[in-house]
């Protein structure tokens, strides 16, 4: 499986770097515009800066969402419909090794996008703080505040959320892989197989979520995730105007547990089925 991960990442390297470059450039443009505005004495968001920030953040989040699905699928589409799939299907590796390797490589790839994105978002948060406090708070002090109050003080909670994120990534990946491989096992045409795969994915996700939520409601299976955040730093102009650094408040998230457990079971079953189909049914 390590070889699968290695070559999957090597194959994706150029695409990863290109995407990171694009994300970096659009966000850098927005931030440079902000720095310029601030340097010439503007102390509020100008329409141009506002638009650039909106476009850059929207672009960044859209990339994150799209890549969440693409990476979690292990780019299985490329495995099933390109000539290069001959290579992967003639190597003496089991279906679970091929799909599992691609899933792990997909996770590594996704983290390569998400971690820089978090840094970019923290830069925005710090920038807004500088604006909001009319320059009283320095950029690096604001950055330190972000990392201390948002990340360091909520480390355990963020770790739990990170775990849940990984879990969602893996289960989504198992769902997409099964949908794609199952469709490809019985339909040779790419468009039809992809369409069937997407419909299958949506149906399975929907049913699993509904069933899980219902069980959680019936049995009261919820996990509470407390998170504290200094809201007056990022909580609007009132908070900005005060120019203060303190004022953290606590928030509680109640996350239903059953959907995750059901997803876990279904994901494991679907992954096993996808691996079996990959070995026994997928034809090129």
């Amino acid at each position, binding site marked *: 499986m390590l*070889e699968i991960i*290695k*070559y999957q990442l*090597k*194959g994706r*390297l*150029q695409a990863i770097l290109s995407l990171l470059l694009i994300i970096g450039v659009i966000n850098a443009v927005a931030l440079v515009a902000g720095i310029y505005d601030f340097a010439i004495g503007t102390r509020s968001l100008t329409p141009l800066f506002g638009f650039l920030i909106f476009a850059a953040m929207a672009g960044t989040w859209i990339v994150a969402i799209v890549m969440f699905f693409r990476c979690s699928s292990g780019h299985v589409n490329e495995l099933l419909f390109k*000539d*290069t*799939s*001959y*290579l992967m*299907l*003639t*190597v*003496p*590796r*089991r279906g679970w090794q091929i799909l599992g390797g691609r899933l792990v490589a997909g996770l590594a790839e996704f983290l390569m996008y998400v971690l820089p994105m978090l840094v970019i978002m923290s830069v925005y948060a710090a920038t807004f703080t500088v604006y909001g406090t009319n320059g009283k708070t320095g950029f690096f002090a604001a950055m330190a505040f972000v990392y201390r109050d948002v990340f360091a003080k909520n480390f355990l909670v963020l770790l739990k959320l990170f775990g849940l994120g990984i879990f969602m990534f893996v289960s989504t990946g198992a769902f997409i892989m099964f949908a794609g491989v199952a469709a490809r096992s019985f339909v040779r045409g790419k468009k039809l197989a992809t369409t069937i795969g997407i419909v299958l994915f949506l149906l399975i996700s929907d049913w699993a979520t509904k069933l899980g939520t219902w069980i959680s409601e019936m049995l009261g299976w919820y996990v509470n995730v407390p998170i504290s955040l200094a809201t007056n730093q990022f909580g609007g102009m009132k908070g900005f105007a005060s120019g203060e650094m303190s004022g953290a408040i606590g928030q509680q998230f109640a996350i239903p547990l059953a959907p995750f457990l059901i997803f876990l079971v279904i994901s494991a079953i679907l992954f096993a089925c996808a691996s079996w189909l990959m*070995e*026994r*049914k997928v*034809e*090129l």
Partner: protein
Amino acid sequence: MAVILETDNLKKNYFSKQALRGVSLKLESGRILGLMGPNGSGKTTFLKLIAGLQKPTGGKFTVFGQRAGFETKKHVSFLPDRNTLYPWMSSLDAIDFYDDFFDDFDREKALDMLDFMKLKKDDRVKTMSKGMIEKLNLTLTFSRKAKLFLLDEPLGGVDPVARERIVSTIIKTWTEDSAIIISTHLVNDVEHIFNDVAFIGDGELILTGDAETLRTERGKSIDQLYIQIFSDK
């Protein structure tokens, strides 16, 4: 001589279309089999079944005594009729890939063959010509110590010099403990290396046998036999 490949009534259907209609043959070690037939005759389907890329609809086959499946992939080295290497790969990446995935891969031999083929280690697949890609794929395929080599149209679309080099490589690679199947319709260029031939049409074997015996009995070259068999079809 050991039996490398044995197929028994091998069938493959694509929905209602019968691509293979019960192919039975036996190939022993040390033999080179020419699998010949026009386009759509079932040559590629046959090779894909043996390589594990497709599953038979009926019948069965063994490779080196093992039933079709995961284990047979370890014994089969397949050269498809198209490029399967990732465009981002350099020649050396491709060698590394085979080295990582196949226990029987001979890295030194691959590097020697790369020189023989006049390919550079840092040439990228995406910048290579069709002939160069064919030579690289052949290098990788033949650098394995596999029991069965399957070559699907290895001479298609390459210039005469590359063709000659490919044929030389096939001859150089021949060993007594493995067997080679070459599917082609460029019969004239390779018939001299065939020990056995199998003519396939509409998914059925029309004629099989020892190449030299067929030449002597019929008084024709394999190329002439090919024309005679398929000109009416």
